[in-house]
């Protein structure tokens, strides 16, 4: 029962020595030499947990495209410390048990340097304990509050996407100032929905608003009309967030329920992520508002780096695939993969990462990060990383449907998204 920290758990001895030798040599060379050395050095292997099958498959497809695009870009620019990145993709089946197994595979079989993952919170939470035990840095792109809540461990970080708590509380000022004070919330009756319920109702009350009714929809539900009568008559704003394959039914039936006289509607784009806004039955959304992690439609004032990012991923101006206009992206979340891979690069370069023995140094290097300026590495916008809670904070977008497109109307500042620390991972041992 050895618990040595620096034991290279994954690599067979020979390949580990080869890796160390090559990378060590690369690190001592000047930059231009690293670049030319890149073709011969052992690649940096990043294990990618992908939702190929199961309920998260639509997200998995776009997480994959974004990640591949980021890897291609980083490699074209010379890789990390002169070494190419190789993405090792495994299907987690959108299942926490398989997720944990896949993580073991990364660490113990495919010799990955770090693991990088995935959207659905239960997969992250099921996998994270194994990441801690394997001492494998695990970068998640999940938007769950699990990292910052202190539930996970020092090896799990979320530097590329903001968490649901900060997203939700940043919406309250806009909703209460522009849409109304009396809110009815509709959310799925499980942990993700409960986070929305708890954090938003607190935040809207702080703004002088009030939640009239909270309608929790059972996760197995496929038809929704029967829940809408619970919406009180004096509701000024509907706040909705749904996930899963039934989202389009949900939004459509909401439109059929209200007919011509609807209250203001504010939703999280999760309710329509990967769904075409011009789908039949969605006309009623004209004029309603959505939270977006990153705008789906190319905005008129978009910066050049946003355009470059979108071109690299292969997204057209409507947020659909450039190859198939019906294939709508998960724009509000997938940018997190792009940014996370760039943070892994930055962390590895700052720590002089040369092999699995430097994993701890990599985590410490990422923990030391603070400001992340907007740019091609961070196309969603500027961010502030909190090394203690392992969670990043950034701007949030509120868009209105105009002519069938989402137009950004308000950008919540980073300050709006901050909340007191709930954990200090840096005090935990590795």
């Amino acid at each position, binding site marked *: 029962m050895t618990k040595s920290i620096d034991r290279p758990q994954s690599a067979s001895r020979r390949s580990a020595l080869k890796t160390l030798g090559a990378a060590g040599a690369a690190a001592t060379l000047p930059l231009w030499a690293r670049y030319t050395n890149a073709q011969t050095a052992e690649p940096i292997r990043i294990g990618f947990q992908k939702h190929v099958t199961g309920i998260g498959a*639509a997200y998995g497809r776009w997480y994959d495209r974004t990640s591949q695009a980021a890897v291609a870009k980083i490699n074209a620019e010379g890789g990390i410390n002169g070494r190419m990145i190789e993405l090792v993709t495994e299907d987690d089946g959108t299942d926490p048990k398989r997720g944990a197994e896949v993580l073991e595979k990364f660490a113990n079989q495919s010799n990955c340097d770090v693991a990088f993952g995935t959207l659905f919170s239960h997969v992250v939470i099921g996998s994270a304990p194994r990441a801690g035990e394997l001492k494998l840095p695990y970068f998640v792109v999940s938007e769950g509050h699990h990292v910052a809540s202190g539930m996970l461990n020092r090896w799990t970080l979320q530097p590329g996407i903001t968490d649901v708590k900060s997203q939700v509380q940043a919406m309250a000022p806009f909703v209460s100032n522009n849409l109304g004070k009396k809110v009815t919330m509709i959310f799925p009756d499980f942990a993700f929905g409960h986070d929305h319920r708890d954090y938003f109702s607190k935040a809207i009350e702080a703004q002088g608003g009030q939640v009239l009714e909270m309608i929790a929809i059972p996760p197995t539900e496929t038809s929704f009309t029967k829940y809408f009568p619970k919406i009180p008559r004096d509701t000024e704003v509907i706040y909705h967030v749904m996930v899963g394959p039934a989202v389009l039914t949900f939004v459509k039936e909401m439109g059929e329920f209200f007919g011509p006289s609807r209250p203001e509607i504010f939703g999280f784009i999760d309710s329509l992520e990967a769904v075409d806004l011009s789908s039949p039955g969605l006309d009623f959304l004209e004029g309603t508002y959505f939270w977006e992690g990153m705008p789906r439609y190319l905005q008129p004032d978009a910066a050049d780096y946003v355009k470059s990012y979108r071109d690299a991923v292969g997204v057209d101006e409507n947020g659909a695939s450039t190859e198939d206009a019906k294939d709508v992206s998960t724009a509000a979340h997938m940018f997190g993969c792009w940014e996370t891979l760039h943070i892994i690069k930055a962390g590895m370069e700052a720590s002089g990462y040369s092999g699995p023995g430097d994993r701890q140094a990599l985590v410490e290097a990422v923990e030391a990060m603070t400001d992340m300026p907007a740019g091609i590495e961070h196309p969603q916008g500027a961010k502030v990383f909190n090394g203690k809670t392992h969670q990043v904070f950034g701007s949030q977008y509120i868009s209105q449907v105009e002519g069938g497109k989402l137009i950004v109307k308000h950008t919540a500042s980073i300050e709006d998204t901050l909340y007191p620390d709930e954990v200090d991972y840096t005090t935990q041992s590795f």
Partner: protein
Amino acid sequence: MEFGPYLMLAMLEGAVLAAVLALMASGLSLTFGVMRVVNVAHGEFYMLGAVMAWFVAHLVGGGAAIAFIAAAVIAPLAVGAMAAAADMTILKRIDYDPERTIVATIGLLYVIQQVTLMTYGADARPVEPPFNSRIALPWFEWGEEGLALYYPWGLSTTSYKLFVIAAAAVLILAVRLFMTRTKAGLIMRATQLDSEMATAFGIPVERVYAAVFGIGAGLAALAGVLIVPVQQAHYLMGGDALLLSFIVVIIGGLGSMAGTIVAAILIGMSDGIISVFFSPTLAKILATLLVALVLVFRPQGLFGSRPR
């Protein structure tokens, strides 16, 4: 919303669910009744119906109505043929052994899901209904001037949802007539009563089984086509539908067509109505326990007579 209109809305929604469920479950009931096998892949035939409706709608031009009619013809036939082929290549060879059929149909379920995922993809895709207008419904109240009609906020349905209810009723009636009035139906019922005796009388039981399995799957596919303009086609949509139709078939009494229909109405309506009184997830828990307890105290189902 006030109680009366709310209840009416819940019942309308329940009726749509009941209609689709009755159609799908009568397919399951048919295979179970005649062949005595549990077809775990039944939900996947339902899903295939919905997915094919999407494909047909995108290949056939000429507007939503023509595409819908084409889908309603093509999808059940294609799915039925596929199921009959599966019956002849797999189920026949394992001799309709109950346990092995469960494993084999689970295998079939994996294959169908994966092939759908690879060809159709992971998205939930909508199909346009042939017609769909919102119908606001009136409610009455005792006002100063006696009985008066008014239109409460949100009390509405769509013409397509009403069509689903009517279409399912017609189709189920057609199946019933087919079983009772035609020679093919007679043969099926004979096989159901005693397959050995049927063989002795020269009925080609194997072909009857293939036909029954195909028809059962076709009914599920038809249910899928009907529901897809209301919900969307998604490659995992078969799971919950399968569970519900299982429940319906068992509650109705194994192999009893009439029982299946009544149970579908009961389950569909109660799903809507219980949600009026309880918080939704609690309602689901109670409804689930209720089904379990009905079976505990009436194991043969509501209409089954065969003691087990």
